Each structure stands twice: as C-alpha cells, then as structure tokens.
C-alpha cells in the first residue's frame, strides 16, 4: 500500500509572529521556518504504518516555493521514500493545494493520504476535507488513532465532547490531531540518507491546475493588545477584586 503525506513549510511554532508595518502580511524574512507540526505527526504515522508492514511506500508532497525542498528533506529524513515538490511562488490557498494534491494523487494512486488537520500559519483546517471531496474519497479528520486494513481503515477522531470512531473505505484521506503519535527526532544518519533520496519538482501548470487565490487579503493587522493587570498578594485580595472591582462573581 502506498501512502501520500502532504507537508507544509510554516513559520516555526516557537517564533513570535510580527505583523508588517504596511499591513500586507506578517514578517517572514530571516524567520525560522519548519514543517507544520501536524504534518510531522502525519509523516510519523505513515512511517509507523510502514514499520508495521501495512505500507510499502511513502511519498511526501509539498506545495510552495523552492525552499519547501528543506521541508521535504526533513520528511525524507523522518522516513519518506521519495518526495515531490509542486513549486510555485504564488500564494496558495487550501482549495488550490487540494487541487494540486488531487492531481498528484491521480498520478501516484495512493490508498491513503495523510495530512495535518491544520497549518499553524493560516489556521484554515480545510485542505484534507477538500482533497477528499475532490477525489470523491472518504474522510476522517482529527484522527487520534488509525488502524489500516486492506480495504478499510478504522479511525478514532477527536470531536467536541469526546471521541468518535469511523470505519472508512479506502482510498481515504485522514487528517491528524495532536495525540495520534509523538513524532521521532530526526537523526544525523537519516538526514545524510535523505540527501540521496529522490526529490522531483513539478509546476502547477504542468498539472493543469489554476492556483490563483480566491480570497484577497485586504490587510493584516495586530489584534488589540490586552493590558497586563495587577498582581494581588493573596486569594483574599483576589476574591475582593473579583467581587467588587471586576464584579464577575
């Protein structure tokens, strides 16, 4: 069974994001970039399925500028067998990425596509669901447990109020939630090995996909700042403040 994993290059989760003064976006120059954490979980899950013998090949895909090659090298170091970069400098929105991944899926014929549930830059939480729709496949989002059989997968999902389990027909799209697994650390020997693995580059045009953005960003602003309050010495003073100043209890 072949698995496709989509990985996105985003500003590292530890970086304090700054809005540009001209309101055109956030500062990305000289900022540490990393693989989207949920995509790391997706890669890890694919590798675990391969180690368990359920999967024979893992193909990592990333859509974006040339620098996404680094993200793909990380995916290869985690354990992908080969990688595909759909290279474009255009701003990619989730529908466009889903269309690109659909074309790649049609070429590669995976039985399973695993993606992070959301990217921590645009926080959209759309691409997996959209890909499943465009392919006409089943979907299981926010997965915290994944069991793969020959023709179906059993997926436990994180939903409001608890957990839900679905049985989905393969081929399918699964998006990962936090507790699915804990991604491994990438080791130096694996980073060296990853350099020798195949990384193919394609252009959206060659896939016949129009990636022009549908949403126009008019401006990006800083959210209103919350003012730091006061420190109180003890619970007695706190209760007094809550009762008589904030009037919240």
């Amino acid at each position, binding site marked *: 069974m072949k698995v496709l994993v989509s990985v996105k290059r985003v500003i590292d*989760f530890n970086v304090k*994001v700054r*809005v540009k003064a001209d309101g055109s976006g*956030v500062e990305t120059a000289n900022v540490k970039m990393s693989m989207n954490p949920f995509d790391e979980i997706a890669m890890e899950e694919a590798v675990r399925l391969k180690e368990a013998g359920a999967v024979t090949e893992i193909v990592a895909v990333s859509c974006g500028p040339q620098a996404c090659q680094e993200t793909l090298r990380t995916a290869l170091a985690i354990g992908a067998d080969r990688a595909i970069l759909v290279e474009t400098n255009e701003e990619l929105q*989730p*529908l466009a990425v*889903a269309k690109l991944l659909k074309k790649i899926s049609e070429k590669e014929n995976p039985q399973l596509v695993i993606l992070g549930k*959301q990217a*921590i*830059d*645009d*926080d*959209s*939480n*759309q*691409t*997996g*669901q*959209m890909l*499943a*729709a*465009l392919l006409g496949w*089943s*979907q299981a*989002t926010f997965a*915290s447990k994944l069991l793969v059989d020959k023709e179906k997968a059993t997926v436990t999902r994180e*939903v*409001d*109020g*608890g*957990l*839900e*389990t*679905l*049985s*989905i*027909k393969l081929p399918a799209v699964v998006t990962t*939630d*936090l507790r699915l697994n804990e991604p491994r650390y990438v080791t130096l020997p694996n980073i060296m090995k990853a350099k020798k693995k195949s990384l193919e580059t394609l252009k959206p045009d060659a896939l016949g996909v129009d990636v022009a*953005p*549908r*949403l*126009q*960003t*008019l401006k*990006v602003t*800083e*959210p209103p700042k*919350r003012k*730091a*309050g006061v*420190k109180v010495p*003890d*619970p007695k003073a*706190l*209760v007094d*403040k809550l009762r008589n100043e*904030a009037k*919240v*209890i």
Partner: protein
Amino acid sequence: MAVLVLADHDGKSIRKATLNTVAAAQKIGGDVHILVAGNGCGDAAKAAASVAGVAKVLHADAAQLADELAENVAALLVALAKGYSHILAPATSSGKNVLPRAAALLDCQQISEIISVEAPDTFVRPIYAGNALATVKSKDPIQVITVRTTGFDAVASTGGTASVEVIQPPGDSGLSAFVGREVQKSERPELTSARVVVSGGRGMGSGDNFKILEPLADKLNAAMGASRAAVDAGFVPNDWQVGQTGKIVAPELYVAVGISGAIQHLAGMKDSRVIVAINKDEEAPIFQVADYGIVGDLFKLVPELVEELKK
C-alpha cells in the same frame, strides 16, 4: 438571496454555537435559514424554528444523516447551495469537518473562523494563532464560512416563528460508517459556552492533581479546561484543550492555574472578559494578559481561594 446556517444540534435541541452563527448570518444580511440534518431530529428542527430572526428551517431526517458523516452532510449542502449567497456553520468539530468538503464540491474557497463581518463579501479572521487578524474579501459566487462562536453574541433561542420545511437528502455515499462514540460525561457546563472556565497547565504536575481544581470549578460553576502542555503530558483528555489547536473560549471569567501562557494557549482564551492567573513563576507570560495574578504555589493557593469564595 438568503443565508443558510448548518445547525449544530444533538437531535433534541440546538447547541448554542448555532445561535452565535445565526448572529453572524444576520450581520451578513438577507433571510436566514437553518438546516437541521440528522436522524430523528424533529425536536431540534422545532427548536430551530423558534430561534429569533430565522425565516425558515430546513429539516432533513434520514438514517444516513444520523452521525453527521461528512460525506453525506456535505452532499446535502451541495444540493441546497444554489438558493443561497452564503453557507455558514459554527467552527465546532462537526462544522469544521463538513464545511470544507462542501466548499470544495462547490469550487469555493472557504473562509475559516470569521470573527467579524465587514461587508457581505469581506470578513475578519485570526491567523497565526490569533497573533494577526486578516481582513479577506471573497470572489466566490457562494461564500462558504465557518464562524468562530466567540466573535458573535448569540441570538435569542426563543421568539422566532419560522416555518419548517421537510426536505429529502441525497442517499448514503457508502464511503464511511459510524462505529461508536465515547462521550465524556460531565455535570459541568460545556467548555465553549461556560460563563466561567478553570484551566490547568503543566504546573499541575499530574492528572490526579487536577482534582484540586474541582472544588474551585464547583464553587464557580465553571467548565474545566487545560493547556496543550497538560494534554500532551496525558493529564487530561484532549477535548479539554484550550488554544489554537483546541477550543476557543471567551468566558466572563477565565482562571489559569499552573499555565505559563504559551502563544498557542493565549490564542484560545485571550478574549475572555476577566483573566486570573495563578503561577509560581512571576515572569510567566500569562501574567501579561491576566487582569489579576497571584504568584505562588498553586497547591496552597487554590484551596485557600476556595475557602475565600465560601466566605
């Protein structure tokens, strides 16, 4: 044109998130219709009809809609889409699961988790865990939108007199099947709609230690939440998680205990009206957003706080 709101419901009643979403729909303008899709959800459809300001309720009742399977609900939305300028759903786990699937089938770029309506085609949404706000304008003929419930005050659940129209959904896709559900039973208010939330972080030290927060939550009639660090450490279930990748809450009072205040946690609670932080580290970032902070040992302070509240 009209705006269609996909209801979040439990078969018997409409969840509050639906009322916040109707508020967003009213800001957009035009008639507001609510779609109640499920199996044996007649009572929920009735409840939807009494929501203030709703013109019509579409009631789709069928076995294949029983468990909100994304494939079947999205197909129903696509079948209905032609008559609407906007399709909205609350950004609950169900709305987030279903709506992008419908959007892609309609060839529309969804707008996720709006917090404000600037114009019928222009919306504000948080990005980067709420560290930036993007104002976006959509060029799509149908706008497909999820609504962050904390951005809109709920409309009244009563006073409306909408008509209920029964509609036939498309058949079962056959792609997925519901197996089971594990719901955490709790006597406490629901996290995203609670008036008070008491949350614990890594500083709690263990899952057992969360018990120390229970009397405090009882006293304040609060929902209980947690930071991602506490969830990651296995102290509490994931559906307690407040933050960028968990639930977004904006209660009247948020009490953060042993939570340092990582960006990703602040993203989920910084719109709360009053924030209280209890942390032993006086440099913890949580104090930069807290209205009232106490520096000290939570295991000593929390019981003391409960005693003070009893006075």
